């Protein structure tokens, strides 16, 4: 059994207020894939991600990780293998120091303290913030908080990383650092984002969601070259694939900026 495979079959989800957020979603993600989930606000991206490690449970259909169905009884195993990085790192960092925050997961899995320390230092080292380990999380910059949130998941040694808007509210250099970091991971990665340039750089496959349904599931480049699909789903090409307003100045096909 490989814990890296994610299988979603006919997933439906209806919120308690009656809003149907996901309709008949099906896909399979295999070992080491890097998949982008894109769509407008309210399309259902975050709701979908929350099903992958049992924060939410399907109203219909099934989600399984490495052939283990996501159920209440399987949550401890599922959550050890699927690391979920929240959109707002402040929701994820609640201990009094970065070290304790990163150690929170391993300690919950009752690892011996020397193993916890090894994992924490290695995770902090990977994201490049080992020097911040004794700082309180609320004193970090947004980029540092994001790194600490990622470290808090890496310390659990997950096989799959699920990230909700990882580049939101980051300055350009922190964003670039994050992209490099995500590139270096060998994990299976699932990234929901509005940052289409980042999706283009990191994910070889992209799933487009609109009104809770999968509109397209293909290679990222093909998706971003399909202007009709992008228009229907309310998206645009990544900036790097759009015409440069300065270079194309004066040309007849230049659109107003």
């Amino acid at each position, binding site marked *: 059994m490989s814990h890296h495979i994610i299988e979603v079959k006919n997933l439906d989800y209806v919120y308690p207020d009656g809003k149907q957020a996901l309709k008949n979603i099906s896909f399979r993600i295999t070992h080491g894939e890097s998949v982008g989930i894109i769509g407008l606000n309210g399309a259902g991206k975050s709701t979908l991600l929350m099903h992958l*490690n049992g*924060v939410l449970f399907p109203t219909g259909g099934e989600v399984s990780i490495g052939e283990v169905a996501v159920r209440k009884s399987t*949550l*401890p195993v599922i*959550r*050890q293998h699927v*690391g*979920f990085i*929240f959109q*707002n790192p402040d*929701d*994820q960092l*609640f*201990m*009094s*120091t970065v070290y*304790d925050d990163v*150690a*929170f*997961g391993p*300690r*919950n*899995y*009752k690892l011996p*303290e020397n193993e*916890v320390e090894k994992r924490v230092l290695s995770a902090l080292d990977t994201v490049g913030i080992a020097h911040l380990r*004794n700082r*309180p999380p*609320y004193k970090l910059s947004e980029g540092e908080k994001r790194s600490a949130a990622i470290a*808090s*998941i890496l310390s*659990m040694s997950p096989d799959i990383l699920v990230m909700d808007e990882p580049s939101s509210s980051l300055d350009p250099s922190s964003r670039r650092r994050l992209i490099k970091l995500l590139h270096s991971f060998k994990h299976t990665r699932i990234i929901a984002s509005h940052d289409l340039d980042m999706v283009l750089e990191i994910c070889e496959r992209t799933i487009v969601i609109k009104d809770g349904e999968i509109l397209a599931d293909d290679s990222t480049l093909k998706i971003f070259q399909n202007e009709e699909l992008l228009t229907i789903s309310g998206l645009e090409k990544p900036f790097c694939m759009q015409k440069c307003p300065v270079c194309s100045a004066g040309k007849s096909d230049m659109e107003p900026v």
Partner: protein
Amino acid sequence: MPTIAESLNNIRLLDELSGQATPVHRLHPLTKLLTTLSFLVVTVSFGKYDLSAMLPLIIYPVALMITGDIPFTPLFKRMLIISPLAIGLGIFNPFFDREPLIILPWLQISGGWVSFTVIMLKFVLTVLAALILVATTGITGIASALRALRIPKIFVMQLILTYRYIALLLEEVARILLAYSLRSPFSRGVHFSAWGSLSGQLLIKTHLRAQRVYESMLCRGFAGEYNTGSLKRFSLLDLAYFTGFTLFFITVRYGNIPVRIGALITDLIK
């Protein structure tokens, strides 16, 4: 809203102070918890007129503040917040108990004033001891000490999560009040017509935020036990600290040190 921001900083200050590396901070959390408990028991056990007898207890918080590098001003500000409670408890004593208790050639002090002073002194000592415990041990250290004492995990969890929730609540209050004040430049404070919606918003927002924090805890394997890592080992210093201070408290309680020192000095003068 500087006052809310200040409150938030105040809460975080205790956390930050607890991260220092002084000899007091290095002690085992259980040692500090038990010593503080024995201090509290001895302090509250004094009679209502035992003012002079309990004065030496001041040495304990002062010694900890000096060795633990804890500044007095922030602790004093916190004491001020809850001081009306203590004042309310004792303020009527001078009116009802007018019998002279301390008679000096130039001054007579009634029993009411003495008992009021004792109440205030007990208040200052107990609150100061509790604040110093948090500032030298941290809430997680206290939690691990409570678990070591076999306090049920549900109570320890309540303590930790309430402590964390206060910071979330204050953050949301600060945001809501800032948003309100930016759009109501001529009003001082919040108009009563907005109290309902603001407090409702506050409740919902903090609830949602707390929910997200809880979800992130669940995602990292949280199963009802707040694991704070293995406790440090007891050292000889821990034993000396606990025994030394407990003996000191007992001596103060039953020895009436100021009276003995006074008698000694009087004998010497004679």
